[in-house]
């Protein structure tokens, strides 16, 4: 433990889970701070256990530290008890590796994985003693950078950040550091100059303060106007074109305490061929770019040698869509079995769930099964383009039951566009059919009763989806629907859980919000909001009160159908997929027509203009 932690050390015995803060992990990167030209603090705005599990952070930590003159460290948000102790002892937020306060850094990056973590971002800046607003930070302050999926519409937090990375950061972040170091060395660094030059010369950089926003009388956005003519009018997403060539960390910082994903995460491909109409990830990560099985196998081996983990998880949005899954699992099984390493395949689709797969992969055999039909009737599944059929589901659960399983978990969404009560009843019916299927399976485990869990979330209209214009159901409607669905379920063998509609509403406000939400977030921070993604911390009434006091009507953002010709706050970003495509998809949804997946037929979404190797896009140009 370094000396800066002496004080931290004395409070660690009085907080819960001190292993979150003690540091000293094997694999952490320590550099001599007097010999580096830029210090980068990579912040994950949630707990250590969640942040340490994030693959993106692992990659970018490695990418930045690969630069000899850059030292990237990690920062997580201390839990509430620790924050209180730090306040009591006058200790600011510090980075894990050096124990230095954040104000000593040149750059601070936040990964924005979910909207409900926005309050944690501000909470962390506050703990670090850094002014929240970009405009209030002078040249001596670190540059505050945002990235991750929420950066595609980070307008609600735009006033707090100096710049955003749009898209994949493997090249962008080092480029930002290089520019910073160069300008410092040449003695011409000012924050203003730096931001301008970054926006002008580095692709994918969005500097919100360089765009002026005007609004119409009805409150909608009128225009985004760049204040310089040498910066892009629309910021285009950056992608890694060739995933085989893309930087991959061959070692990892090893947590001592148990984290959420305490295993090797092997990223098999980026993007998704499916195009579910509610799904943001399915759109913003396009186009699909696969890694080859040989490269993946080599990377997995490397990580096994350097970490000693006994589980490899094949991650991607829908693992069964990987064209070479067979070959990859065969290559991996050649050495994983004898070394007693488990392979896990999250994100399996029902249509790919087979007996062969079950026999091959031990964890598929042992863990409980989860499928996501998302909607209760074929009509609504067609509307959302979730191309899963009832018989696919029945076949899949049949295979599982025949293999001795008795529990299945099903994910659904309520409040989807065009949803009717019969669709909700359909969810209950589907669950009953799964129960019936159990008793119809002769090979079932006769000593056990079946158990089906249905977990229902609330639809949230997200930017860059065909449903981005939709109104979210009001809370009363959502609550009513949840209750109705509950009343449709009479069988004790069906367990029913649903998300809190109040959280989903706030999430909808933040997801489609614009810059006028900043005062509300600022006030929320002042009032001590934090960890809003955690049930025990979220307080709906307080959120509403904050909005009210700032003159913000949450319904304007959550429950209003946005006009199809309206300027959207996120129009400033080009994520590859065109607005025309999203509109086409929206119309098809209302007609109840499905769209084939990218491998069956290209629907011309526009993402191929970004280029990409090993993708199914026609004419992917680089």
């Amino acid at each position: 433990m370094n000396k800066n932690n002496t004080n931290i050390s004395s409070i660690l015995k009085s907080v819960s889970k001190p292993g979150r803060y003690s540091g000293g992990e094997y694999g952490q990167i320590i550099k001599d701070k007097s010999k580096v030209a830029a210090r980068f603090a990579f912040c994950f705005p949630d707990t250590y256990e969640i942040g340490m599990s994030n693959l993106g952070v692992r990659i970018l930590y490695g990418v930045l530290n690969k630069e000899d003159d850059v030292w990237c460290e990690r920062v997580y948000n201390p839990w509430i008890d620790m924050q209180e102790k730090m306040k009591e002892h006058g200790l600011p937020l510090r980075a894990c590796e050096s124990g230095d306060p954040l104000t000593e850094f040149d750059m601070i990056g936040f990964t924005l994985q979910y909207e409900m973590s926005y309050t944690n971002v501000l909470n962390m800046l506050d703990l670090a003693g850094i002014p929240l607003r970009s405009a209030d930070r002078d040249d001596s302050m670190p540059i505050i950078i945002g990235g991750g999926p929420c950066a595609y519409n980070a307008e609600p937090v735009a006033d707090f950040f100096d710049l955003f990375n749009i898209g994949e950061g493997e090249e962008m972040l080092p480029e930002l550091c290089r520019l910073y170091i160069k300008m410092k060395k040449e003695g011409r660094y000012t924050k203003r100059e730096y931001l301008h030059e970054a926006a002008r010369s580095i692709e994918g950089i969005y500097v919100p303060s360089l765009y002026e926003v005007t609004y119409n009388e009805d409150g909608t956005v009128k225009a985004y106007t760049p204040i310089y003519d040498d910066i892009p009018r629309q910021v285009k997403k950056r992608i890694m074109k060739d995933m085989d060539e893309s930087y991959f960390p061959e070692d990892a910082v090893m947590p001592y305490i148990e984290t959420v994903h305490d295993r090797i995460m092997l990223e098999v491909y980026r993007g998704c061929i499916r195009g579910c109409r509610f799904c943001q990830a399915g759109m913003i990560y396009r186009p699909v770019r696969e890694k080859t099985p040989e490269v993946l196998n080599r990377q997995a081996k490397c990580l096994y040698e350097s970490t000693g983990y006994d589980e490899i998880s094949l991650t991607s949005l829908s693992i069964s869509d990987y064209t070479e899954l067979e070959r990859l699992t065969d290559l991996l099984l050649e050495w994983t079995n004898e070394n007693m390493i488990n392979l896990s395949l999250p994100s399996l689709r029902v249509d790919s769930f087979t007996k062969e797969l079950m026999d091959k992969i031990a964890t598929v055999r042992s863990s409980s099964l989860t499928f996501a039909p998302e909607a209760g009737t074929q009509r609504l599944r067609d509307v959302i383009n979730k191309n899963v059929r009832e018989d696919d589901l029945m076949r899949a659960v049949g295979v599982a039951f025949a293999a001795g399983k008795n529990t299945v978990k099903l994910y659904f969404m309520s409040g989807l566009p065009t949803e009717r009560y019969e669709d909700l009843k359909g969810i209950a019916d589907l669950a009953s059919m799964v129960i019936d299927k159990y008793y119809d399976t002769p090979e079932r485990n006769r000593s056990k009763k079946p158990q089906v869990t249905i977990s229902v979330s609330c639809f949230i209209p997200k930017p860059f989806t065909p449903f981005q214009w939709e109104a979210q159901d009001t809370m009363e409607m959502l609550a009513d629907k949840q209750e109705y669905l509950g009343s449709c379920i009479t069988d004790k063998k069906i367990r029913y859980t649903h998300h809190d509609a109040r959280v989903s509403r706030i999430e909808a406000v933040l997801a489609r919000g614009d810059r006028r939400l900043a005062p509300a977030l600022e006030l929320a921070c002042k009032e001590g909001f934090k960890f809003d993604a955690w049930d025990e911390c979220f307080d709906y009434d307080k959120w509403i009160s904050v909005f009210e006091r700032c003159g913000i009507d949450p319904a304007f953002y959550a429950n209003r159908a946005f006009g199809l010709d309206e300027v959207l706050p996120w129009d400033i970003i080009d994520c590859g997929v065109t607005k025309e495509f999203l509109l086409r998809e929206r119309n098809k949804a209302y007609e109840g027509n499905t769209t084939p997946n990218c491998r069956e037929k290209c629907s011309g979404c526009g993402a191929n203009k970004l280029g990409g190797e090993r993708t199914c896009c026609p004419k992917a140009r680089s």
Partner: protein
Amino acid sequence: MLSESQKLIEKKRIKSLPELERPRTVRLKFIKVGSLQYISHLDLQRTFNRVIVRACLPIWYTKGFNPHAKLVFSTPLSIGAQSTCEFLDIRIDREMSCETIMERLNAELTEELKIVDAYIPERDFADIKWASYDISITSGGISENTPEQIMQRIKEPIFMLKKTKAGEKEIDITGLIHSFSCKLVEGDIKISCTLSASSTEYLNPELLISGLARECDLLCGSPLEEHYDIIRTSLYDAEFNLFK
């Protein structure tokens, strides 16, 4: 540290090492200090499971449906206490010298969790009866008379709630103390003591100092957790021979 590709070669080489007739137990003596004092026993076990894989040791795995390495630890240490005398027994099934084992493990460990000795054990963990600790207490409630006051108080019974298998029980913890000394060094209380460490009558040093803090009012009401440091320094058998 071996590079990853060296490790792959090494893995193959291990398979050609001479096989042992029976699995051999190797005892590792290690330190757990600094940041590592906040890591629980369970987390430590998980950590070592990964470390032995990284270190490319010829570990013996249990047979059967769920093969695993057999790691046996001596008296667990509670969170918030450091130690320079922890023991872990591992089993290997191929020839490898204790020096090599230690070297390889240390390449995968840090300065705060490090192997300091490796050898073929002669004694059982069950022989451990006593443990010595160095404790320091920093607090505004300490004066020049405090050591004397503590030394007096320790002669009388101190009753504390102690968790046992049968539930919580009030016991006189002074019955579990073998030796105890206490002095003032630069305003801090420094205690050296030897406490019972058998599995049935284990006295947690933290329980002792919270008893003393209560009886001698060392803390003036501030929380004990923020004012002490504990280091376990050695383990002994019933005859006070140093446990190895």
